[in-house]
């Protein structure tokens, strides 16, 4: 009959109105600045650079290979390689990004940089409150602003970070095993001498393209309170 639908609608809205005072389901608003709904784990927004250890500058996993810079569709990444090499946390000499800028006003959050990075050095952040009153420099983040610790990564994406760590540990263990085997072989073949060089050579020969380079067993042993998850230096 005419008007039936209107009455039904009125009843429904009345239930919504009354229900909003008693039931949480009928008042789904989260009052944002004071309370926030938890972000889903897969949330992602802008990239950040992962570093290990306590010193962000030393621990940056990035080796300025510039793959992400080339792959970035809107070209929002700007990397300048360092002229010198500086020892990374294991003491090995590496190129490092002298400059690593991301213009987040250009970034489109596509995550391609993360996918192409062979060194697990760049990951997606969940931070979204990026508004600033300086639209030129405020939105151009440099490497210091981009650097986040691995612990932070664990915090925002625990599953993914655990996977990454496991993979790295796995690869490192493999490489270590290989290096050890190579070292043993070398030790067996030629008794003493330049074992370090041989190990490095063997490692170089054994490594396939994107895989992390082995750390010489001795160096490794001597170096650092090794976290199980680090092991990302490369040549």
């Amino acid at each position: 009959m005419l008007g039936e639908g209107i009455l039904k609608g009125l009843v429904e809205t009345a239930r919504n109105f009354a229900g909003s005072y008693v039931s949480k389901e009928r008042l789904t608003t989260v009052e944002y600045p004071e309370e926030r709904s938890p972000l889903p784990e897969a949330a992602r927004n802008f990239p950040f650079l992962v570093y290990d250890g306590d010193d962000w500058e030393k621990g940056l996993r990035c080796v300025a290979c510039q793959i992400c810079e080339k792959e970035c569709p809107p070209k929002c990444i700007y990397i300048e390689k360092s002229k010198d090499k500086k020892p990374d946390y294991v003491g090995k000499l590496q190129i490092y990004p002298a400059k690593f800028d991301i213009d987040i006003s250009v970034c489109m959050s596509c995550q391609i940089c993360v996918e192409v990075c062979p060194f697990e050095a760049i990951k997606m952040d969940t931070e979204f409150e990026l508004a600033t009153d300086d639209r030129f420099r405020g939105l151009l983040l440099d490497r210091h602003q981009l650097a986040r610790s691995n612990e932070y990564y664990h915090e925002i994406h625990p599953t993914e970070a655990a996977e990454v760590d496991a993979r790295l540990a796995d690869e490192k263990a493999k490489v270590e095993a290989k290096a050890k085997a190579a070292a043993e072989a070398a030790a067996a073949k030629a008794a003493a001498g330049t074992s370090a060089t041989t190990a490095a050579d063997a490692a170089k020969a054994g490594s396939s393209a994107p895989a992390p380079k082995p750390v010489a067993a001795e160096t490794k042993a001597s170096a650092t309170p090794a976290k199980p998850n680090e092991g990302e230096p490369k040549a």
Partner: protein
Amino acid sequence: MIERLDQIFVILKHWLLGYLPESWQTPVGVILSVVCIIGLYPALFAITTVLERKGVARIQNRLGPNRVGPYGILQPMADGIKSLTKEDIVPTTADGVVHFLAPVVLVVVVFMGFAVLPMGRNMVLVDMDAGLLFYFAMGASAELSVFMAGWSSRNKYSLLGAMRAVAQMISYEIALLLSSVVIVMITGSLSLVKIVEAQNHYTWGLPHWFIFTPWGLAGFLMYAIAGTAETNRSPFDLPEGESELVAGYHTEYSGFKFALFFLGEYVAMFSISGLGSTLFLGGWTAPLEVLQFIPSWIWFFGKLFLSMGVFIWMRGTLPRLRQDQLMNFAWKFVLPMCLLNLFAAGLWHFMGAGWLRWVVCSAILILAYVSIGREGMRRKNLGPRSYRYAE
């Protein structure tokens, strides 16, 4: 004491006027009442805007404004300050004078309607013999200001909105008039004070409101529909359909002039609600005989807010009609029902007291409602919407 409270505003006015010389009393009294009306309704408007925003928000599972003041009750102050301090923009091609006059005319005309509304026992500005006619004359003038606003803006959206508004208001004005004529037929008076008096009787403690008769109920429903359309409220708010017309006839208004339009719309809602409660809901009379000790003006404003609540409720519920649906509804459903209602009211009058007239009048109206409704649904004039998408 109860009498005092009921008449408190009347007594207050007379007490104030007592300090004035004899010759001044009449003009100053009128000015005093006018100032009260002009001060009161904008205040009610401010309260209603926050109630509406809160209410619609609750209907839509939101919280509504809650930042300014506790629970957001100071929101209208913020809105007011905002619109007062905003730049008043007049398009360069606009017709300056008409553009300026339109909101002024609207507000003046809308406020004029309150002159004849009895807001309580002895609380009416002018007890005019032709009060209802005066009210409708003023309501008819509001159309012109809408047209002025739309045309003077020199904006096609404004003009389209204005033409829609005028067409809609004219169509529903007929229904509004015809649904009220029923009351005039039964009471034999155009004076709103007399119409309220006619409803101020009680049988078994129940009031003789006109809504409690078959023709009164039908008339009230038609009046409510026509009144909603007349004030351009949802679901009849096509003149302001922001999805297609930006904001309709007041697209080109900003700052204080826009605030005047906004005010005019709400005050028109108050006045239509007030007239509706005067005609059908007994005006300032109490809904039960035992409740008569509560002052009459409380009842009037209570009924006013009740109907404002229904306005808000409908706004939160119903989607906007399409222009052809609107016109079909007015001319093919509301108008025939109104005419039939006139017939029913005539029957009621001439059949004399007794239960038979209840049965006959109800039967006629229900039958007509069902058959017109069914026919309309079948022809898709009034029925569920069907959409044809581009393929």
